[in-house]
C-alpha cells in the first residue's frame, strides 16, 4: 500500500469537507422543502380551522346531508298552554365544536325559556333542538323569541357574532278573557260634498274567552259634524243600529273570531273644500271575563302607521278622481283621423252633388 504524501492528504481532506458540506446543504434544502410543504398542506386543510356555530334563518337549505334549518314556534297560545319551539344550530366551519349550551329567551336575554346542552357538534354538521315552554304566568301579548348557541362561551369560534337568531314571527300569548281590537276603514280617497262614503269596521277577539253580548253597546260610533248617517248599516253578526248620527252594535264575538260592520254616511253639501273630517268608533269589552264591559278601545286606522288613530277623509270640491291604473282616454279620432274624415266628407259631398246633377241631367 502506497502512503500518501502530505499534499495528497490535504487534497483528500478538502474533498471530504466539500462532500460533507454538500450533503448538509442537500439535507437542509430537502428538510426545508418538507417543512414548507407540510405548512402549506396544513394551511389548505379547512379542517384545521376553528368551529363556527351559527343559527341559520328558518328554511335555510344546504345544511349537511341536504338538511334544512327550522327556527319556529308552534304558534299563538292561550296563557297557560305550552309552546313548542324548534331551533337549528349549524357548525359552519369544519372544525369540531366541543360541548356547549343552546338557550331560548323571550323579550330579551333576561327572560329564559330554557337551555339545552349539546355534547359537541362536528365540523359542517348541524343539530335541531326542541324546547317546550309553559306559558303559565307569562304576560299576555306578543313576545319576541330569541335563540342563542354557546351561551356559556365554551367554544372558541371563528365568528362569535352569529350565534343568535330572533324567530321571524312573534308569539302571541292570548289572555283567558276577551281581548278586543278594531280597525275602521273608509272607501276611496275622493270625496265631494253630498257624496256617500262607506265605513267598514272590523272587530277581532284575540282572547281565549268569548266576548258576550253584555249590557250596553259593544261598539259605538258618533258621526262628526259634516257627516250624516244614511241609515244603511249591516253586520256579519249581532245587531247594528243607526240612531240619528250614532251607529251602535250589540253582539258577541267568539274567541278568535271577528265581526265586520259596514255603514254609510253622506258628506254635508255645505262642507268646505279641503276640510278634513275624522272620527273613531269605540269598542267596549270585557277584559276580565266577568260578563261586564269594563274596557274600551278606539278603532284604529290601518292606513297609517300610528296606533289607535282616527279615520279621516278630506273634502274635495271639483277634484279629479284619482288616476286609476289601467284607465285610458278613448277619443274617437286623432287629429289626423279628423282631417281624413273632413277630406272624405268633402269628397263624398262633391261626388254626390255631381252624381245627382248628372242623374238629373
Amino acid at each position: 500500500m502506497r502512503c500518501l504524501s502530505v499534499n495528497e492528504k490535504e487534497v483528500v481532506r478538502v474533498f471530504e469537507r466539500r462532500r460533507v458540506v454538500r450533503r448538509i446543504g442537500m439535507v437542509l434544502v430537502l428538510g426545508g422543502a418538507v417543512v414548507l410543504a407540510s405548512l402549506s398542506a396544513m394551511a389548505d386543510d379547512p379542517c384545521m380551522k376553528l368551529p363556527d356555530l351559527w343559527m341559520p334563518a328558518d328554511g335555510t337549505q344546504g345544511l349537511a346531508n341536504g338538511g334544512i334549518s327550522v327556527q319556529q314556534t308552534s304558534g299563538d297560545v292561550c296563557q297557560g298552554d305550552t309552546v313548542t319551539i324548534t331551533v337549528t344550530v349549524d357548525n359552519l366551519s369544519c372544525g369540531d365544536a366541543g360541548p356547549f349550551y343552546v338557550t331560548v329567551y323571550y323579550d330579551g336575554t333576561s327572560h329564559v325559556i330554557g337551555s339545552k346542552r349539546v355534547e359537541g357538534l362536528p365540523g359542517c354538521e348541524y343539530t335541531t333542538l326542541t324546547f317546550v315552554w309553559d306559558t303559565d304566568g307569562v304576560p299576555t301579548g306578543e313576545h319576541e323569541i330569541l335563540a342563542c348557541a354557546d351561551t356559556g362561551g365554551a367554544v372558541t369560534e371563528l365568528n362569535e357574532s352569529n350565534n343568535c337568531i330572533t324567530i321571524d314571527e312573534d308569539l302571541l300569548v292570548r289572555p283567558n278573557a276577551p281581548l278586543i281590537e278594531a280597525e275602521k276603514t273608509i272607501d276611496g280617497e275622493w270625496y265631494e260634498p253630498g257624496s256617500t262614503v262607506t265605513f267598514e269596521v272590523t272587530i277581532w277577539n284575540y282572547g281565549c274567552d268569548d266576548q258576550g253580548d253584555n249590557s250596553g253597546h259593544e261598539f259605538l260610533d258618533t258621526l262628526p259634524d259634516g257627516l250624516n248617517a244614511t241609515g244603511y248599516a249591516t253586520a256579519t253578526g249581532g245587531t247594528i243600529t243607526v240612531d240619528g248620527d250614532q251607529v251602535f252594535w250589540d253582539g258577541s264575538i267568539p274567541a278568535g273570531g271577528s265581526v265586520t260592520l259596514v255603514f254609510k254616511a253622506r258628506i254635508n253639501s255645505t262642507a268646505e273644500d279641503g276640510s278634513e273630517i275624522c272620527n273613531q268608533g269605540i269598542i267596549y269589552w270585557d277584559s276580565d271575563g266577568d260578563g261586564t264591559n269594563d274596557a274600551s278601545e278606539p278603532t284604529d286606522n290601518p292606513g297609517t302607521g300610528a296606533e289607535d288613530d282616527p279615520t279621516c277623509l278630506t273634502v274635495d270640491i271639483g277634484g279629479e278622481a284619482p288616476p286609476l291604473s289601467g284607465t285610458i282616454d278613448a277619443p274617437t279620432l286623432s287629429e289626423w283621423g279628423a282631417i281624413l274624415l273632413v277630406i272624405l266628407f268633402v269628397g263624398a259631398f262633391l261626388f254626390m252633388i255631381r252624381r245627382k246633377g248628372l242623374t238629373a241631367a
Partner: protein
Amino acid sequence: MKTVKGRPSLFPSSLQKWPWGSILTVGTTVAVLVLIVNDEGAMQWIQTALATITAGILTLFGHAAVVAGSTVQTDVFGISVVTACTGLFTTGLYVIAVLAFPARWRARAIGLAMGIGGIFVLNLIRLVSLYFIGVHFPGVLDLAHQGIWQAVFIVFAVVLWLLWAGRWGRARRPASKVVS
C-alpha cells in the same frame, strides 16, 4: 254671330244655385256645435251620460262598473270619457253634410236620426269593446283604439252619409221645356 261657349263648371248648376241657404245652415250648425263644445255643463252631461250607459252595459255583461265623474271604472280597468270620446266631431261633420246637401226637410230628419243614432250606438260599442280589449288583450289595445276603431268610425260615418244622400238626396230638377 259669334257664339261664346261657356267653360264647363266643376260644379253642376244646382250647387251654384243654393250656396247661400247652405252656407247659412252650415254656419248655424257649426255655431251650435261650437257652443255645445264650449259649454262645460253640456259637455259634462254628454260625457256622464255616455259613461253611465257604458257602465250599465258593462254591468249587464257581469263587470260591476261604476262611474266616477265621467270615468267608467271597474276593479281592473277604466275608460275616461273625455270630450273627444263623445264622437261629437264626427257627428257634427255628418250633421253639417246632411243639412248642407239638397234634400227635403223630412229626408234631412231621417238622415240626422240615422247618423246621430248610428254614431252614438257605434261609439257605445267602441267603448265597451275597448274595455274588454283592455282587460283581456291589453297588448292590442293601442292598435284597436288608434287604428281599427278610428278607421271603422271614419268609414261608417262617410258610408252612412253616402247611403243617405244616394237614397234621400234630392236630384236637380230637370229644366222645364218651353213649348212655343
